């Protein structure tokens, strides 16, 4: 289904499928369908609006939306206009958005926020920012530098959709921000060709066809969720977006009512379903064809519980990273054998793996494929540090190959915390906490989640300044004003000095004023 044509991209395939099969559902919002014809018409009008409003090919446009048809329409509109989508978490504090805006300088953005003031404050971090859209604003306003549009009104005001000059495969499609070992999140640049390879690999893995309905149960602003939009719309399938993501019992019945056939989820969400909604899970998803589980290792106990709840469903664990997307997959076939979460399986057919600096069969895992990113946005040094001369990405994982060819992981070479699939940099948290006026020194450690849901969580070890009082609540509140909720440490422990035994490496303490 990756039809020919000069520009063989997800967006061009989507436009082609919409001409061929206009009446097929492309999106189901709960159970309300939006056809391919309607989606292409609306998103093309919005592309036209972006171009009329002064967005040029290659310009960055931030996408700060919750899961909804608006997300899909805006995403397609950005790509259709030849611009670059920068998806961001709408729940993140202004300071976190501002850091990204300073880095990639968007000219426009789609906001979830019903508060234009907050949006303009974020926009002011980017010097060329001029257009803000939201479905939730009262109307259209204009300041000296920024115009704010109500998205629906703007779409309606476009004369005719017409044909778009769709972007070439090698052009930049997406920048996805991810935490690395350093403090500042880095922008992973993905081309339209990358996105097509990611969809092709997903289609092969899940044996996806036009009758499939993919349930979007993770945030679409993550590449892990976003790529399911691409996967559905380049296959002629539908993406099902539940209206009640936060209420799993309701979400599960929506997925059932929409006849969902496949889902990609994450261990932390599945742990909640198993724990609290076991009965609803097996009642609503008994006909599910596949359940892919990625972004973090799933404990074998959880896999066994899923196998028990969904005996007819193909369970697949996947391994990847934002910089190279899909790397390995593993079919969970035998419920009786406790699966070792370190077994990440075999590579996708389009992926080649090697072990760098290999000693006794163990080395750092390197990945090559058409899914490997172009590089980090405006960060040549970081790009050179991770992409090898033969265009492979160095992962942070060490591993070895088992005799059957499957990859086994043995540990990370960095301190990044995998908090429910979100990669959290201890350095970033340390830098934020160190800015608190009462904090003399801080180090952030990885500890097992006491609730057993997120896998790992962050703990802050803090030294107070001489003679001041400072509570853990105050430290956490300070962190929450600058960091996304999942990056805020689970707990704070106060010490007189940071013991060298926990430092491990010199970077482990953000000492103030030094």
């Amino acid at each position: 289904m990756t039809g020919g044509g000069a520009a063989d991209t997800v967006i061009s395939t989507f436009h082609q499928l919409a001409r061929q099969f206009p009446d097929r559902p492309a999106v189901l919002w709960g159970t309300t369908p939006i056809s391919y014809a309607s989606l292409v018409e609306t998103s093309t009008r919005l592309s036209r609006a972006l171009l009329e409003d002064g967005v040029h090919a290659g310009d960055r446009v931030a996408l700060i939306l919750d899961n909804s048809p608006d997300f899909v329409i805006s995403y397609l509109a950005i790509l259709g206009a030849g611009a670059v989508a920068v998806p961001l978490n709408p729940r993140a504090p202004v300071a976190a958005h501002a850091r990204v805006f300073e880095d990639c300088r968007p000219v426009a953005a789609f906001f979830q926020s019903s508060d234009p003031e907050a949006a303009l404050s974020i926009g002011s971090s980017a010097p060329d920012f001029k257009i803000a859209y939201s479905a939730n604003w009262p109307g259209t306003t204009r300041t000296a530098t920024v115009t704010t549009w109500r998205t629906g009104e703007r779409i309606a005001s476009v004369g005719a959709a017409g044909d778009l000059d769709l972007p070439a495969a090698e052009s930049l499609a997406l920048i996805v921000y991810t935490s690395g070992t350093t403090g500042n999140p880095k922008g992973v640049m993905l081309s339209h060709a990358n996105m097509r390879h990611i969809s092709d690999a997903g289609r092969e893995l899940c044996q996806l066809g036009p009758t499939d309905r993919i349930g979007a149960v993770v945030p679409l602003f993550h590449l892990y969720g976003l790529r399911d939009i691409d996967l559905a719309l380049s296959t002629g399938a539908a993406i099902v977006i539940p209206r009640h993501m936060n209420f799993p019992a309701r979400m599960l019945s929506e997925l059932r009512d929409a006849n969902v056939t496949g889902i990609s989820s994450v261990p932390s969400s599945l742990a909640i379903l198993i724990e609290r909604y076991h009965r609803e899970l097996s009642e609503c998803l008994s006909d599910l064809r596949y359940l892919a589980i990625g972004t973090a290792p799933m404990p074998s106990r959880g896999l066994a519980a899923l196998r028990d709840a969904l005996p007819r469903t193909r369970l697949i664990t996947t391994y990847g990273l934002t910089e190279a997307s899909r790397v390995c997959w593993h079919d969970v076939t035998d419920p009786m054998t406790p699966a070792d979460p370190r077994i990440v399986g075999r590579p996708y057919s389009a992926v080649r793996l090697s072990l760098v600096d290999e000693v006794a069969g163990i080395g750092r895992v390197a990945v090559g494929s058409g899914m490997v990113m172009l590089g980090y946005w405006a960060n040549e040094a970081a790009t050179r540090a991770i992409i090898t001369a033969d265009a492979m990405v160095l992962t942070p994982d060490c591993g070895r190959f088992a005799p059957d060819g499957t990859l086994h992981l043995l540990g990370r070479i960095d301190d990044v915390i995998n908090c429910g699939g979100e990669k959290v940099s201890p350095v970033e948290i340390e830098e934020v906490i160190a800015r608190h006026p009462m904090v003399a020194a801080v180090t952030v450690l990885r500890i097992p989640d006491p609730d057993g849901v997120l896998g790992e969580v962050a703990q802050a070890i803090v030294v107070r300044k001489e003679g001041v009082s400072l509570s853990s609540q105050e430290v956490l509140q300070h962190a929450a004003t600058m960091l996304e909720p999942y990056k805020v440490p689970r707990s704070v422990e106060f010490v007189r000095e940071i013991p060298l035994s926990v430092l491990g490496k010199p970077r482990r303490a953000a000492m103030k004023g030094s």
Partner: protein
Amino acid sequence: MDRNTIEQELTTHLSAVAAGRGKSGPIDADRPFFETGILDSLSLLDFVAFVEKRYEIDISGRDIVPENFGSLRSVTDYVLGRLQRPVQQP
């Protein structure tokens, strides 16, 4: 236990949760938690666990729906209903 007491207790608890998420100010009884960012899908379960423990009730997954846990007012109503008329757990 009367309505005011329950609402007061829930407000105190949620204010502390909200503060830990960098949100301050009064809690609007009718605004959805997820709109204001006081709770997310994970902290919702912590909140449900708090309600279970504090009011000594078991809450099934089926009951964790927007009508019962969408806003301060809906939770207050739900807890009051459960305390007045204990529901048989299946």
